[in-house]
């Protein structure tokens, strides 16, 4: 299965559920995955949430929510190296509207954290809606055991992530030379401590070892602008494609990454 096929199937499943159900029945039969396209970030998000019956399908009153967008690179939003800031702001707003106690946002960045948080504009936009946007603090990575891991038996994971009531994973769909495209699982590297470079050889096994133990409650893939070449850091506007798409699922849809990986071998 290649990326195109994978995306098509996802789209089909999503579209199918939307067509099949009328809004009243949706609550009874929530879809596995929803694919929406052709709108602005806020519209995409609300459309996708509607088909799950609203954000309260995932977030309850009084929850401490961790949102994990990609803030990894010192790039402005139009370079599509970081998650769309409007999308992040909208989901923060939705969480608070449904009664979340606190929304925390952080990422272990690749470039200088101050630069990334600022240049991605995620800090500014998310704080406007009351999210706590924090730099990762080294002392908060705690050893986390992975009893079923094939290669890794333990890895440091960020404390706030483990302690959160609900986790929303918000990757941006980007090109990456190693797996062609990176989505949800690669994005979770932002909560991993230690020498992350070490994960990169025999990547697919190692990332599975860790991610299968720290699954998020909801994954929202930002496909508003995607990076089609020169990922994951990008930096060239010619490599950015405006696709105005969003994929949402309570399961880490992006486990498709393993499929792409095996394709490459």
């Amino acid at each position, binding site marked *: 299965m290649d990326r195109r096929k994978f995306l098509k199937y996802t789209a089909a499943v999503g579209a199918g559920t939307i067509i099949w159900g009328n809004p009243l029945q949706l609550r009874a039969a929530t879809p596995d995955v929803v694919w929406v396209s052709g709108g602005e970030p806020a519209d995409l998000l609300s459309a996708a949430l509607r088909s799950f019956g609203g954000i309260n399908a995932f977030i309850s009153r009084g929850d401490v929510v961790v949102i994990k967008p990609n803030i990894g690179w010192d790039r402005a939003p139009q370079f599509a190296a970081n998650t769309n800031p409007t999308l992040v702001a909208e989901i923060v707003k939705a969480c608070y509207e449904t009664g979340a106690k606190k929304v925390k946002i952080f990422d272990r960045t690749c470039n200088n954290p101050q630069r990334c948080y600022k240049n991605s504009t995620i800090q500014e936009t998310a704080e406007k809606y009351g999210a706590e946007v924090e730099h990762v*603090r080294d002392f908060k990575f705690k050893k986390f055991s992975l009893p079923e891991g094939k290669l890794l038996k333990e890895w440091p994971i960020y404390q706030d992530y483990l302690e959160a009531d609900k986790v929303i994973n918000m990757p941006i769909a980007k090109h990456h030379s190693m797996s062609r495209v990176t989505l949800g699982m690669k994005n979770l590297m932002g909560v991993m401590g230690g020498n992350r*470079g070490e994960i*990169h050889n025999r990547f697919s096994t190692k990332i599975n070892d860790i991610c299968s133990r720290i699954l998020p409650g909801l994954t929202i893939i930002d496909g508003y602008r995607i990076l089609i070449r020169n990922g*994951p850091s990008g930096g060239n506007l010619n490599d950015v494609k405006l696709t105005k798409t969003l994929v949402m699922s309570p399961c880490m849809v992006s486990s498709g990454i393993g499929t792409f990986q095996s394709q*490459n071998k």
Partner: protein
Amino acid sequence: MARFRRIVQILFLFFFIFLFLRARYPYEVNLSSDVFLRFSPLIPVFYLIDNLSLSLMFWPALLILFLTIFLGRFFCGWICPLGTTLDIWDRIIKAPSNRTNGKWLKMRWVKFGILTSAIFLAIFSYNVWGFFDPLAIFTRITTVIIYPVSTFFSEKILVLGANLSFLESAVYPVYDGFKSMIMPESQSFYQSVFWTLLLLVGILTLEKLSRRFWCRNVCPAGALLGILSQFRLYERVVGDPCPVCNRCQTDCKMNAIPAGNVKETNKVECIECFNCGEKCPPEAKSITFRLRLNPYHTQPDFLRRQFLASGAAGLVTLGFFSVGLSHKTSSDRFLRPPGSLPENEFLDRCIRCLECVRICSSNGRCLQPGDFGVSLLNLWTPVAIMREGYCEYNCNLCGLICPTDAILPLTLEVKQKTPIGLAYFDKNICIPYERNEDCLVCEEHCPTPDKAIKFDVKEAVFSDGSRKKVKYPYVVRELCIGCGICEEKCPLPGAPAIYVTRTNEKRWETLPAGAQLKAGAQS
């Protein structure tokens, strides 16, 4: 007057520390942080020797030099942060009074000797005065020792507080505020800590011999200002009721009042601290200050013999500098920050203040104070050690902060296209080449719009006969700017499998046209 002087001293010290702390990302003050280093009176003099021209960039120093002619060494007594630090230190360690340290008087000529040798060497285009510049010393010690040490302790204490559950919520905001206002995001490692520590301990220990030992006997800036201060417009007058208690003499910071004659003042040594007026016993109150328009002359304590000796010492030093310590393995990896002048001019212009190293510590953290490794002159010059950090692609702050433009203030666009080196793979240890496993961490981080690290896909055959496609990275020379993020992020322990060398570096002699940037401006 002495109290007023103390207030001014403390204000200037805070001003310098404030500017030092502002020298970090985001660098958005309208007052450029390097302005305080341009207070250094030595800079315009040596700039003149180097370039046979004056630069208005050093207006604070030129102003001080001009005023010194009429006001004397007020810079040493009122402004110099190193002097203020020593004054505070003297109070702590109770430095001895002039009653016991008379024997050090004969050392006074050394500072003139250092100034002479430095001028002599500058004519031969060797910059040694930067090592002795008081403001550079202050910034250097603060950058390499004081600041990291205080950061270390404050961070440890805050983390300790955060671990106590009842303090946790109170400590985090403090920690975050501290982190974004004062600390660098992550603490730097500095390689030449030893020499800087030696300098710090040396200067502080010498205070046990006499107050302001450094200023009295070593500082070439003090020597220069002392020689200049011949037309001082006012003088200290000791009135007739003076009981000759010698208190002003024994407590003089600079020993500028001769032991035999309290009515005289050595204008070359006096730093206008006005302590003598304060020390004069209230029942006598015989010291006053008044304007005087026909000034008298004080000879600097510098004999012809000593002048010749320091000239000769300069010549010997010149010989030392010609001794080669470098071999190609180390010198070709001695990377300079982007925008550095060509190497010889760079060494001439750099005052070894390490302000660039300080501002880099809040960004990519590649800049380190240089060591003796390559040559004697390279001590405390900035060198980029990419394994410890990398040059942040969107950052040009080292050029903006450099007080003497030894690192030119390139615009971001020019800086991003100015290679400071070239990366090479060590295929013997690089994971894909050595183990036939994918890695590509270097390629992932490469920041150029068209990646300078590309890869071939080849089929590898394993011992059990199985085959697998593996991606083998390589560097494209034309695209690589030597930023070194590949070297820093390389997951191998110890030595990296990709490293940056000085090959292909681009040095600008002047700012490229259209790249002029206002001080403090930043994109």
